[in-house]
């Protein structure tokens, strides 16, 4: 992973994190928004322009790849590089959670 990717994506925004997290399986933009809305109880809403822009940027940076098109909807999936970035983020967030006493409350 080159430094530029690390600088841009670690740490990443909540929007970017959820998009990458959802794309562990093949999905299109709107279905990601719906899944994230459900996962967060309506607290994280990703709109059309932000979704399109983030997907394009991640595709350009090689974090996700275009799989196929279905009724003009583009379906994407995470790449090996994307998974590597996601794992880094998950480790960082777990550490945060641990350090604020998260595990004690479980």
């Amino acid at each position: 992973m080159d430094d530029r990717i690390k600088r841009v994506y670690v740490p990443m925004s909540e929007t970017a994190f959820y998009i990458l997290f959802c794309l562990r399986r093949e999905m299109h933009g709107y279905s990601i928004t719906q899944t994230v809305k459900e996962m967060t109880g309506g607290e994280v809403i990703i709109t059309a322009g932000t979704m399109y822009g983030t997907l394009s940027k991640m595709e350009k940076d090689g974090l996700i790849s275009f799989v196929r098109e279905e009724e003009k909807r583009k379906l994407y999936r995470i790449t090996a590089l994307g998974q590597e970035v996601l794992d880094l983020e998950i480790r960082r967030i777990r550490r945060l959670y641990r350090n604020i006493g998260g595990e004690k409350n479980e």
Partner: protein
Amino acid sequence: MSEKNIKKTYKWFWDFDYDKQEKYYTKMHAKGWALKKQEREGTAFEQRFEKCEPANVVYKVGYNAVKTGRGSFIKMFEDYGWEYCGEMNDFYCFRKSADGASAEELDIFSDDESRLNMSKKAVTVWLPMLTMCTFCILIPQTVSILGDTERGRADLTALILHWAVYVWGYIGVFVSSRRHKKQIKKSWDQK
């Protein structure tokens, strides 16, 4: 449709004035004039409207430079309930009824990073073009008119007007990009 049901207005919108366009179309729709759909038509200074019932409809402008992605770009917005209503120079116009919709549903951007990106794109699309025209058209024209001993008053007037448009463009770029940043900051302060 009879001419009575069509209204044309003549306003100049630079691409980076997309926020002003959004407000203008939204205001017109509330007065009973819906922006007429015109694919790959229309100019920056002529807007066509169709008579409609006055309604609370929000207009938004999105940007997509990837020509092959045009269909999927529009489809993405349609999935989120936006109706496509025209495009110009890679800027696409969409609208949605505001009745019963939440603030998030009426925005096309949900974070500041993407709002700033939109502003940057609108400015970076224009600056190189403006600069190129300045060096390839405006400056040679200025040199030729000023060097012409038989130049008339009309030539000078044309030259001054030409300069005025460019200066307006350059100032517009900077004023708009500052305005966009202010709006982003304001929306952040309100949260």
